[in-house]
């Protein structure tokens, strides 16, 4: 099955045992993103730290891809800078549009999301939390200034 490219073991693991799920009370910016076609939702919060990194927390509901992707996001983007995180978001988009090869240094387990590129309708699921992160991060930095 082609499907196994999308639903790799590593993705299903993240889905079943999500990392970092749960909202922190303390935050500088909060966003709520939805995928209007299927109703997937995420609430994501960002707190900037002294050293310029951003702490992330989230809560979500949705399909395996959107939940696994959020869990991977937590692994990769918790406590990174806006620049580092933005670079990762852009690489994920490029990978899902097949314009860049998966780079494990940037995405960690996220490279396993490459199978999603075969299913255009699922790309939005994989991107939901990452777009939310970018939105919230920019707001949080903006407020800090």
């Amino acid at each position, binding site marked *: *099955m*082609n*499907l196994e490219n*999308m*639903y790799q073991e590593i993705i*299903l693991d993240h889905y079943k045992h999500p990392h970092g799920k749960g909202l922190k009370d303390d935050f500088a910016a909060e966003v709520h993103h939805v995928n209007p*076609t*299927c*109703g*997937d*939702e995420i609430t994501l919060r960002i707190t900037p730290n002294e050293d310029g990194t951003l702490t992330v927390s989230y809560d979500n*509901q*949705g*399909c*395996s*891809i*959107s*939940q696994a992707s959020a869990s991977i996001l937590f692994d990769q983007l918790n406590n990174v800078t806006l620049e580092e995180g933005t670079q990762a978001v852009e690489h994920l988009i490029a990978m899902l549009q097949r314009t860049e090869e998966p780079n494990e240094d940037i995405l960690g387990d996220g490279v396993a999301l490459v199978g999603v590129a075969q*299913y255009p309708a*699922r790309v939005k*699921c994989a991107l939901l939390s990452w777009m939310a992160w970018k939105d919230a991060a920019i707001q949080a930095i903006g407020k800090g200034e």
Partner: protein
Amino acid sequence: MAPLDVAKIRADFPIFDRTVRNDRRLVYLDSGATSQKPRQVLDAERNFYEHHNAAVHRGAHQLAEEATDAFEAARATIARFVGAQPDDIVFTKNATEALNLVSYSFLNATIKSARGKALPEGAERFVLAEGDEIVVTEMEHHANLVPWQELCDKTGAVLKWIGLTDDGRLDLSSIDFSERTRVVAFTHQSNLLGTVNDVQAVVAKAHAVNALVVLDACQSVPHMPVDVVELGVDFIAWSGHKMLGPLGIGCLWGKAELLAAMPPFITGGSMIETVHMESSTFAAPPKRFEAGVPMAAQAVGLAAAIDYLNDLGMDNVAEHEHRLTQLALDALSVISGVRIIGPTVAHERGSAVSFVVDGLHPHDVGQILDEHGVAVRVGHHCAWPVCRRYNVPATTRATFYVYNDEADVTALVDGIKAAQRFFGVGE
């Protein structure tokens, strides 16, 4: 009653000659979103373009005459299908535009009246006052909810709604229409729950307080015999593309005296009587509501779809779907971990069967089904409030139509079990 010959029907639909994913047979269970099209419809549309194409109602040459005749003959065929007069059928691009046409009639009449501008005789029926009430139901498609929310936002009217019972029916006991109730807009069949509503019961209560009744017939006209006179409603709206017809055409039927009383919605060419730079006057319905060059080829295609359905017989179509729905409900109810959202019995119910699978998100269920060649829809089906009402983020939905058979129900069941196995849930 004559059972449908599904093999013969499928042979008319070119799309079933293709396979999907890993060379699987196409099991199309998404007709609730849009139906497939038989050769007869595609041929009719193409024949129009190849032999009679011209702008209708606009030329004195032979092609224009032929195009106009074909367009108006299509209108007559479509009218007959729902027991209506041709002049009471307005063509729109889809059902959504048809419903907006009605909601904008209220907006435009209200604004023009407040400014003391000319309105058609009888337009008071469409003038809203602050605090007037518009009633919908909690099972509406967004197309029959958002336009009314918008209308309320713009006029100060108040939106109310009829709630739902736990088993997926309208809670008629929650109805409290009053003299402030101006519009009751509801669906004939829910596209998510499958529920078929008791139209006449609602109409009786609505008309008792003089409210206008707008029926969303998107999921009824394609699937059962519908007669506007029998239903007793004031407007019905539906789409061509869900009933074997082309994309890009919808229909509004309205009572003649109401259409005549409505100010125009979209304005421009062909809907006018006279035009001066200072002001214009407007044609009688249906032209008043058909500004610009219309979708004549699509009207011809839709008439061909109706001929096709008439040949099958709408009673037979309804009976066929009823049987498949019964089968599907029975089969799904014995899969452990599967829960139907909507009535679990086929009585007063159409073929839209929504369900959730414990431990699996509908998107993932849909994906595995797709891998098995089974095309279903997943999500909130443009009826988000229904999902909220039943506390599910989304559902997986199968819908059956004339080209589906028992084997398709089996494929659905097998696919759901495969999804459970793949994700390690269920038994």
